[in-house]
C-alpha cells in the first residue's frame, strides 16, 4: 500500500440556520493514498460536497478531523486544488490571466511559476489561446483552462466537485477522458464527488458509496480493470463495468 496522504476521521457536520439544524455528514472516515483516484458517490444533496469543502479547509467540521500528509487541515489548505461544477473562468480576464489567478491570490507569482504555467499551457494545447478571452473557447478548452488554473498552484490533491456536470452528455464523456489523461500525467491524487455512478467507476481506483443525508459510508469498493492502459472511455466498455455498476446501484437504493 502506498503512502497515506489524506486521512478523514469521524467527520460530522451540522449546519445551523434560524429554521433549524441540518445534519449533512455523520461519522465519515476514509483514507486516500498518494496517487490514488477516489470517488465519493451518493444521491444528490447528500452532503458529498460538504465533505470536499471540509477536506479543502473551506468549511470547519462540527466533529472529526482531516489530515493531509500528517498535518491537520485548518483554513484553506495550500495542498489542495479545487475544481467546481462550472469552469468559472472570469470573462474579463484572458486565458493566461485566468490561469494565473491562484498564483496571484497566493502571492506566488514569480518568474519560475509563470514559466511553469506557460509550460502547462504549452503541453495541453492552450498556448496559442493564452491571449483569448474565455468566451472565444469551446467548452472542452475551457475545462482544460480551468484544470490548468488549478494545477498552476501545484496542489498535491485535486478535489473535483461534480466537475463536469455543467457540460452536455457527449462533451462530458470527451472532457472526462481528456482531464483524466492530464491528471494521470501530472500524477495527482484525486478525490472526486459525483452522483454519476458510471463516471465514478470509469475514473476511480476506489469508489466510496455514501447514503442519503446525513451522509454515512455504505461501502468502499476497489475498482480494478484488466486494461493495459486505462482511460474512462475504455473502462466503460469492459466486461467488469456492468457488475460494478449494478452493485453500486443496488447499494444506493434509488427510489423515484
Amino acid at each position: 500500500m502506498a503512502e497515506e496522504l489524506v486521512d478523514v476521521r469521524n467527520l460530522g457536520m451540522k449546519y445551523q440556520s434560524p429554521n433549524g439544524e441540518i445534519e449533512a455528514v455523520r461519522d465519515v472516515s476514509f483514507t486516500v493514498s498518494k496517487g490514488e483516484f477516489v470517488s465519493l458517490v451518493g444521491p444528490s444533496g447528500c452532503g458529498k460536497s460538504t465533505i470536499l469543502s471540509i477536506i479543502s479547509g473551506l468549511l470547519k467540521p462540527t466533529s472529526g478531523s482531516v489530515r493531509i500528509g500528517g498535518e491537520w487541515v485548518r483554513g484553506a489548505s495550500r495542498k489542495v486544488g479545487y475544481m467546481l461544477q462550472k469552469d468559472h473562468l472570469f470573462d474579463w480576464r484572458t486565458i493566461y490571466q485566468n490561469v494565473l489567478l491562484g498564483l496571484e491570490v497566493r502571492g506566488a507569482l514569480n518568474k519560475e511559476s509563470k514559466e511553469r504555467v506557460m509550460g502547462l499551457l504549452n503541453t495541453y494545447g492552450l498556448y496559442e489561446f493564452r491571449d483569448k478571452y474565455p468566451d472565444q473557447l469551446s467548452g472542452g478548452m475551457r475545462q482544460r483552462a480551468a484544470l490548468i488554473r488549478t494545477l498552476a498552484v501545484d496542489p498535491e490533491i485535486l478535489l473535483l466537485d461534480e466537475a463536469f456536470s455543467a457540460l452536455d452528455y457527449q462533451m462530458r464523456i470527451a472532457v472526462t477522458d481528456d482531464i483524466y489523461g492530464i491528471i494521470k500525467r501530472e500524477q495527482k491524487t484525486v478525490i472526486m464527488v459525483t452522483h454519476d455512478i458510471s463516471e465514478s467507476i470509469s475514473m476511480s481506483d476506489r469508489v466510496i458509496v455514501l447514503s442519503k443525508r446525513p451522509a454515512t459510508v455504505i461501502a468502499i469498493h476497489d475498482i480494478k480493470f484488466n486494461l493495459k492502459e486505462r482511460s474512462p472511455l475504455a473502462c466503460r466498455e469492459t466486461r467488469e463495468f456492468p457488475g460494478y455498476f449494478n452493485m453500486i446501484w443496488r447499494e444506493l437504493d434509488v427510489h423515484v
Partner: protein
Amino acid sequence: MFMSERQEPALSRERAEYLRKLKIRKHAILTARILILVAFFAVWEIAGNLRLIDPFLTSQPSRIIRTLSNLYMQGDLFKHIGITCLETVAGFLLGTVLGTGVAILLWWSDFISRVLEPYLVVLNSLPKIALGPIFIIWIGPGPSAIIVMALAISLIVTILEVLNGFLSADPEKIRLVETFGANRLQVFTKVVLPSNIGSVINALKINVGLSWVGVIVGEFLVSRAGLGYLIVYGGQVFQLDLVMTSVIILAAAAALMYQGVVWIERKLMKNPQVYGRM
C-alpha cells in the same frame, strides 16, 4: 475542438444586399434626427415672426442667439457655464467616490449593512431638496453648499446601486478564489469589483443626471451665479430669452458630460467581448 475566429468570407450577393440596406437605414435615421431638430427650430422661429406665438413668452431661436452673444460680450457667458459645470463635476466625482466607498464598506460588513439599512431607506425616500436651506445656512451661500446639494441627491442612489451590484457577484466565483485561500480584500479586488464594472458605470450614468439636478436646485436657492441662477433670474425679471438660452446651454452641457461617462465606460471595458454583451 475550438471555435474558429469569425472570418469574413467573400461576400455573397445576399450578404452585400443586406449590408447595403443596413447602411441606408443608418443614414435614414441620422437624416431624420437632424431634420427634426432643424424643423423644430424653424417652426419656432417662423411662428414667432408670424406672431402665431408670442416671442415675449416663448422666446425665439434668433433671440436666443442674440442673448448668447450679449452674454458673451459682457464676458459673463463662460463664467456662468464654467461655474455650473465645475460644481456638477465636483458633485459627481464626490458622489461617485464616496458612494462607492460606502458601498464597499457595507459589502464588507454585513453587520454594518444590516444596522444602517433602515436609515438608508429613510434617506433614500427623503426628497433631498428639502435639505437645501439647511446646507446654505450651515455652509454659506456659495459653490460649496451647491456641491453638497448635488452630493446629497446622488450619494444614496449611488450607494444602493453599487452595493446591489456587489452583492450580486456570483457566489461560486467567490468560492473559487476562496479555494485558493483568498482573503476578503482579494475576493473584492479579484471578483466583486471587476465583475461589477458594469453596475458602477450605471451608477455613474445616473449620477451625472442627479448631479445636474442638485446643482441647478442649489443655484436656484443660492442665486449668485451659474446657469441655474440665470434661469431663476430670467424668470424673476420676465426675460424668457435668458431662461431659454440657459436651458439650451444646460442641455448641451449635460449631454456632453453624459458622453464623457460613455467614453470612460469604453475605456474601462478592456474586453470588447464583455462590452458587446452589455
